[in-house]
């Protein structure tokens, strides 16, 4: 994938931060608003794909390696499993929500009925959202990156 014109690059420069911030917002507020780790991660990964389209795969490849992204994906998966296994330790149940109602991190219980959104609620749901978000960002971006590399390997002659 070769790089595109200056118009596309400028537009990508403007849109990329907003896309990433919007995706991270969806991940962080997954327990309050529609969306979650998967959806927000897909938004961030699409922003990275925009960067790849605008600047070309060689520009991206000199700055980020797919092995590091794969490592991030594994880190997200391990964090997800770890939170699920901690449920066995603290609440005798796989995927047990041991933080809900404990007044610790994310431990506040909201009043029953329609209430205002409080970020400090949800128990382990925000932690799982973060883990799945990291996993999906790295996973989808490494898929796009590897495919871009494979499609442009002949052009580089290497």
């Amino acid at each position, binding site marked *: 994938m070769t790089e595109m014109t200056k118009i596309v690059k400028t537009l990508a420069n403007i849109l990329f931060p907003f896309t990433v911030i919007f995706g991270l917002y969806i991940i962080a507020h*997954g*327990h*309050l*608003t*529609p969306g*979650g780790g*998967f959806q927000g991660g897909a938004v961030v990964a699409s922003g990275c794909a925009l960067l790849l389209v605008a600047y070309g795969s060689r520009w991206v490849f000199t700055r980020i390696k*797919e092995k590091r992204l*794969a490592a991030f*994906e594994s880190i997200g*998966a391990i964090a*997800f*499993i770890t939170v*699920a296994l901690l449920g066995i330790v603290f609440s005798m149940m*796989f*995927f047990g*929500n041991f933080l*809900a*109602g404990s007044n610790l991190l*994310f*431990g*506040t*219980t*909201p*009043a*029953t*009925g329609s*209430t205002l*959104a*409080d970020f400090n*609620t*949800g*128990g*382990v*749901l925000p932690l*799982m*959202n973060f883990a*799945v978000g990291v*996993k*999906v960002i790295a*996973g989808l971006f*490494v*898929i796009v990156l*590897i*495919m871009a*590399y*494979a499609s442009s*390997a002949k052009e580089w002659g290497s």
Partner: protein
Amino acid sequence: MEKRVIAGALALTIVAVFFAFSIFLLHPFGDPGEVQMDDHIIVNTQNETGTNNGVTSIVFDYRGFDTLGEATILFSAVAGVIMIFRRVKE
């Protein structure tokens, strides 16, 4: 070639018969049938999981195994893509 056509027609017929039977087992329109689990989740999700978002509470708490399988699918998809598009030294 003939055997493949016959096998395909047979498989299609079996699937079509199952779909045709399942049509008569559908609930009537607007009547979801048994809703005890839905009612339990709607009433108790704020107390049990401490979140205002019922959908996320189902995805990550009540149906956590489903999300685990989804994450596994994504992991295997990434592993497969890396394996297929790996750099081959000639």
